[in-house]
């Protein structure tokens, strides 16, 4: 690393910032996703704390009813769209191209555009806090409530999610094309690491699940901003259409949140048990089966709408069927550890904590799938407990596991183990304190989304325990933040392969050079690196002679395109008030479309790293 590394060390903050604003490198885009997603995770966590403080005692008046509505709406929206998904997409960006032996994703420019669309969408949504109030119709934004909600809160929800959602759709297409076209020689589909498999299947879900949300948001936008009548019953509209469109998106969405996590845990269990993943093939097919069934079950969110016993029964049975492939996965993970040389560190702790937590969430899921019982559970804290057990106990645990596991690869330093363990234990205990009791609060009749509960209904103690648990979780997150700062300052430098890993990302330096692989490796089996460690010479055999490497050019255009949509978003939101806002609307669109035209007509052929330059760099 001669000249390039030297200049990178000395550059100014401005150059650093410009580098990240214009980067199309999947590894730097991963950093951006982790930063952006992490920021929104803290914001969503803060909103959660306000919700729990309000519910610490009966008839509390910490926040008003209106603010409380905004808090739970923004908590859900932020955590799903702006925290969990971006963090997952960040990990996919960081690990997937390395795992298949690729030098970048299929569309590096589009990758940057995906990130900036997400970021500007998230910022737009959160601007609502300062501009007359956040959305307050729940993250599901059901009509007619969302149509009649006063102010511009719901308009911000529409515009923000529309922009962020477009970015996510592009990520899905990008990852699919990458995995199909850019696998290293020998990397057949059935030799791909499980995280790459789940990225692939999740991307399919994204491509097919996000368009219904796009349409739903358009219909809501047309009704709220342009006077159409989709949900206006007086003009023949139908409010149930929103619920169908939302959940045709919304149910696959929860699998978008959990399938990549299954992939992360599969990597972690195999690596730290020193064993090949038990039942690799059934794991792949179970993932496909979950994804397929995930599109068949959306109406289980709508049992109480009145679709009739036949529709309800079909969706109930389909929902219960999902427990089968999920159960296969749980048993495969247990069997992976069985007889393995299990090493327990922070990443592994999150994986171990995940199994019982997620299994509880899965079990309550089957309970909720039972239609008759669901009439009792519907819209109570039982549902809140269920989806937090799967989303926190599954997705958040998995993100933490993935961060600990890939942190050395992403940032070149190993996260501190002591602080990692402290984070795990406080968060794990806090999580169960917060949400386990909520099952019983729900069964006792406490409805979700209410800003107060009354005294003397035996709900006091449960809510107090739940709030105390939330503080434990917050403490764990703060320790994790300290860990990040400490690691950046004093953390131990990571070797290329700190965990004695099994897959291709551990064959390159930590952090990897910007071109990833000097020579694309030849893959000889599942767990490519492990094959070489046990049957080869301990390192990958190159599949090609050293040659020039083609690299994409950096570009500021993704930032400008997204900025244009961000500006246009304000135009859309405010044009019903004053037609002058059309200037902002068209101005923003002109910026975006102009930047797209520049992108189209200017040839972007990339550049080549010369063979001689690669030879000069020390191995």
């Amino acid at each position, binding site marked *: 690393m001669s000249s390039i590394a030297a200049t990178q060390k000395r550059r100014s903050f401005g150059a650093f910032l410009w580098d990240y604003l214009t980067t199309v490198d999947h590894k730097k885009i991963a950093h951006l996703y982790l930063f952006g997603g992490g920021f929104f995770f803290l914001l969503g966590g803060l909103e959660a704390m306000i919700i729990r403080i309000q519910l610490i005692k009966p008839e509390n008046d910490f926040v008003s009813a209106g603010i409380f509505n905004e808090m739970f709406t923004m908590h859900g929206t932020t955590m799903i769209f702006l925290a969990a998904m971006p963090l997952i997409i960040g990990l996919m960006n960081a690990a997937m191209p390395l795992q298949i032996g690729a030098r970048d994703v299929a569309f590096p420019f589009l990758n940057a555009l995906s990130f900036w669309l997400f970021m500007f969408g998230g910022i737009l949504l959160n601007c609502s806090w300062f501009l007359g109030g956040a959305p307050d119709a729940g993250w599901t934004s059901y009509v007619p409530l969302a149509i009649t909600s006063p102010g511009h809160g719901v308009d911000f929800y529409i515009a923000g999610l529309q922009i962020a959602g477009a970015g996510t759709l592009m990520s899905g297409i990008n990852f699919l094309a990458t995995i199909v076209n850019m696998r290293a020689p020998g990397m057949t589909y059935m030799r791909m690491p499980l995280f790459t498999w789940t990225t692939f299947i999740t991307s399919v879900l994204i491509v097919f699940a996000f368009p*219904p949300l796009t349409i739903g948001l358009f219909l809501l936008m047309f009704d709220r901003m342009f006077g159409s009548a989709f949900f206006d019953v007086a003009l023949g509209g139908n409010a149930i259409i929103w619920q169908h469109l939302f959940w045709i998106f919304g149910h696959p969405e929860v699998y978008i949140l959990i399938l990549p996590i299954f992939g992360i845990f599969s990597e972690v269990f195999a690596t730290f048990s020193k064993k090949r993943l038990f039942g690799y093939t059934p794991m792949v097919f179970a993932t496909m089966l979950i994804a397929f069934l995930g599109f068949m079950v959306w109406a289980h969110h709508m049992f109480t709408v009145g679709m009739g016993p036949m529709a309800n029964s079909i969706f109930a049975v389909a929902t219960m069927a999902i427990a089968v492939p999920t159960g296969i996965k749980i048993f495969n993970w247990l069997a992976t550890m069985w007889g393995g040389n299990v090493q327990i560190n922070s990443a592994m702790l999150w994986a171990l904590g995940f199994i019982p937590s997620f299994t509880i969430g899965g079990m309550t899921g089957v309970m909720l799938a039972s239609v008759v019982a669901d009439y009792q559970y519907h819209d109570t804290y039982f549902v809140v407990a269920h989806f937090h057990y799967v989303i926190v106990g599954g997705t958040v645990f998995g993100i933490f596991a993935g961060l600990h596991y890939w942190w050395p690869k992403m940032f070149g330093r190993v996260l501190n183990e002591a602080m990692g363990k402290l984070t795990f234990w406080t968060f794990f205990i806090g999580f169960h304190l917060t949400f386990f009791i909520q099952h019983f609060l729900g069964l006792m009749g406490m409805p979700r989304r209410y800003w107060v509960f009354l005294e003397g209904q035996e709900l006091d103690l449960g809510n107090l325990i739940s709030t105390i648990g939330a503080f434990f979780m917050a403490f764990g997150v703060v320790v994790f933040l300290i860990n990040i700062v400490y690691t950046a300052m004093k953390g131990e430098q990571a070797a290329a392969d700190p965990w004695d890993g099994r897959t291709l990302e551990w064959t390159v330096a930590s952090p990897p050079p910007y071109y990833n692989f000097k020579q694309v490796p030849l893959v000889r089996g599942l767990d490519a690196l492990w094959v070489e460690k046990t049957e080869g010479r301990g390192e990958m055999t190159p599949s090609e002679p050293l040659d020039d490497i083609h690299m994409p050019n950096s570009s500021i255009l993704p930032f400008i395109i997204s900025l244009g949509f961000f500006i246009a978003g304000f135009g859309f939101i405010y044009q019903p008030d004053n037609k002058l806002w059309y200037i902002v609307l068209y101005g923003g669109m002109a910026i975006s479309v102009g930047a797209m035209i520049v992108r189209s007509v200017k040839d972007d052929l990339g550049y080549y790293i010369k063979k001689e330059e690669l030879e000069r760099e020390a191995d």
Partner: protein
Amino acid sequence: MNHDHTLNPETMPQEPEKATLEGKNKFLGLWFFLGGETVLFASLFGTFVALRNSTAGGPTSQEMFGLGLVFIMTVLLLTSSLTSVYAIYHMKNNNFKLMQLWLGITGLLGLGFLSLEIYEFAHYITDYGFTFRSSAFGSAFYTLVGFHGGHVIFGVSWLITLLIRNAKRGLNLYNAPKFYIFSLYWHFIDVVWVFVFTVVYLMGKVG
């Protein structure tokens, strides 16, 4: 990746659109995009079918729709699909001039379709008072057909940009995938129109 601008019919590969990794990625990426677009239009069709009888006392589809106009629109758009096939045929034979000609005809047919659609909408609004806001049926009709029309507008703009940008460059491995994926997109718009014609107009007139 060789972006040699001096390719001649002898050195041009059989499938120039998939001769480079960039080309392969664009080809596959557009197919996945069309997969997403299919669900997008499916959602719109579902909404339309749910609301197509919710006229709120306004004009019904039987009263308004005239199959003659829609038939001409269908002929225009389906023919434009055929002409784009000719264009790609000439692209594969490395005949840039004829490819430009057939793509130009494709664009003109698309514009013809669009002008008839604009006439159709204006006719409904002025003669029947049937607007985006008058009933749920109106909202669903203009949204579904308008989304399709918007895709045609986007396609024509895309085509014009491509033709102008590459007017004097000839065919090479860098722009061949761009022309090819445009034609894929254009076929998709046609297929959607077949469903619009069936579900909106035929079922609206008869059903």
